[in-house]
């Protein structure tokens, strides 16, 4: 017999997005909330992100990940917002029935609103299909980070890092501080994947070279990794024969991208955008399924936790209104990517309210304008000296600039075009 309960808002995941959504809902008058967290503690990935640099936008100071999480956890505890840990969500149905496996057994919740805040996971070697043996010593950056920062295990001595994502660069520094030798970081793209400040403070500060347009083409070793073969790649990112170079190492760290964690969403019937790999949402962060909302890295991968929190707070205001009124204004107008824009959200808007648009450019641009067109007319633009894929761009567009008719196209226009 599965126990049944009802709740106004069920939040799937107690990381930064889930915590901010919970606090936001509470502040908007919704008090019948439940945060469901699969780990023993709230905080999500912030628990292992011990470096500082979090909180500049939200708190005006630079905090470590655990300190940033603690600020929200303290609010949750002070407000008395219910949460359960060590509990896995097994399924979310389109009618918002959420089944969980908790230490007290299975429980089935009927929720007025379900908030999806499961975050993201790392791309693995399997996803890259690097040929070669399958020795131990090949880790994603986040796994190496957990070993060192949570479990007190040092997994590496001689290190090669593949991919210049922010976590990879942060781990280059962390491994160096712990006495490992990080030989180099190799990035397949012709530009760094992570933020410029991390290239500076994590690589340049420790004399770790970054090679662009390079990738791993073979992995060597039987029990433990003994080395990797690195090749240059051409403009189509295909390895160039004859450029192979062998590096001896016992550890290969992968920092090759993050993917929103949407298995539960798919089962609920939530449609995903192939660009973000997160849900299609309207300006209220509601998915195509009525009453199911998403924010944070499960929606689109962010570069900064501060923006995850802000997004979840915005979601909370809308979700609270949905819970109180049973509906939100319709959002029939589509939002699409134009020239140079890799993804944009929300993907649907009302045209009658203020909106926040998040986007990334496809490639590094200089002296460009981010332009929002509606029905062939320019309704908003922002001039940018530089725009890079590593940095999410957010535009706040007032309702006064928008019409209730016609879809939006978001593009970048460069001066030399």
């Amino acid at each position, binding site marked *: 017999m599965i126990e049944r309960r009802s709740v106004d808002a069920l939040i799937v995941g107690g990381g930064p997005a889930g915590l901010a959504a919970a606090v936001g809902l509470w502040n908007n008058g919704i008090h019948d909330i439940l945060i469901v967290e699969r780990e023993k503690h709230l905080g999500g990935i912030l628990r292992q992100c011990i470096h*500082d640099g979090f909180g500049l936008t939200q708190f005006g100071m630079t905090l470590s990940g655990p300190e940033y999480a603690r600020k929200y956890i303290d609010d949750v505890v002070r407000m008395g917002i219910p949460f359960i840990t060590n509990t896995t969500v097994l399924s979310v149905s389109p009618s918002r029935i959420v089944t969980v496996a908790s230490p007290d057994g299975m429980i089935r919740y009927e929720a007025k609103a379900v908030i999806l805040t499961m975050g993201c996971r790392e791309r693995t070697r399997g996803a890259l299909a690097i040929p070669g043996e399958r020795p131990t010593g090949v880790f994603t950056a986040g796994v190496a980070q957990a070993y060192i920062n949570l479990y*007190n295990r040092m997994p590496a001595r001689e290190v090669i890092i593949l991919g210049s994502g922010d976590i990879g660069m942060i781990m280059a520094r962390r491994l160096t501080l712990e006495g490992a030798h990080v030989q180099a970081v190799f990035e397949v793209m012709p530009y760094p994947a992570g933020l410029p400040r991390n*290239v500076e403070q994590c690589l340049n500060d420790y004399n770790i070279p970054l090679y662009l347009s390079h990738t791993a083409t073979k992995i060597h070793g039987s029990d433990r990794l003994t080395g990797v073969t690195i090749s240059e790649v051409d403009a189509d990112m295909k390895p160039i024969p004859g450029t192979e170079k062998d590096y001896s190492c016992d550890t290969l760290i992968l920092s090759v991208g993050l993917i929103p964690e949407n298995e539960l969403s798919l089962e609920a019937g939530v449609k995903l955008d192939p660009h973000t790999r997160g849900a299609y949402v309207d300006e209220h962060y509601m998915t195509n399924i009525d009453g199911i909302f998403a924010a944070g890295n499960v929606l689109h991968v962010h570069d900064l936790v501060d923006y995850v929190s802000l997004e979840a707070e915005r979601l909370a205001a809308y979700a609270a209104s949905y819970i109180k009124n049973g509906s939100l204004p319709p959002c029939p107008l589509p939002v699409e990517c134009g020239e140079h824009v890799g993804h944009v959200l929300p993907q649907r808007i009302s045209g009658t309210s203020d909106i926040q648009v998040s986007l990334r450019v496809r490639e590094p641009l200089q002296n460009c304008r981010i332009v929002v067109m509606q029905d062939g007319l320019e309704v908003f633009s922002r001039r940018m000296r530089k725009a890079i894929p590593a940095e999410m761009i957010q535009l706040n567009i007032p309702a006064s600039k928008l019409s209730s008719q016609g879809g939006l196209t978001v593009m970048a226009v460069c001066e030399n075009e």
Partner: protein
Amino acid sequence: MTREYTCIMCPNGCLIETEYDPAPASEGAPVIRSVSGNLCPRGAEYVLQELTDPRRTIATSIPVTGGELPLASVRLTAPIPKDRIMDAMAEIRRYKVTAPVQAGTVVIHDIFGLGSDVIVTKTVEAIEPSGKTE
């Protein structure tokens, strides 16, 4: 001389170009002629700091005895000269704490007299009486 910096003060990561006269071989500070490309005044401060006395913070962790977790994360409260980073790591490695330990607890006060404390950044509760750690 001219030099480019990527500012690390905030995630904007401004690319800042500066023109400056280097310090004389013995003493004195470089004289900055111009700074451009920074979106805020902290960029100019960063460039001056980099030219005269580059500083960084670090974060690491220390073992916890009797805790529900094996490690407590720690960080510096203020940046220290870049060339003292590895010394600071070696010094921090000598410390451990006993649970329970609260975030904010000072582990090392004023490390090497550099005006920066090492503080705990994660609260670690003591192991439960039953001995369960999970």
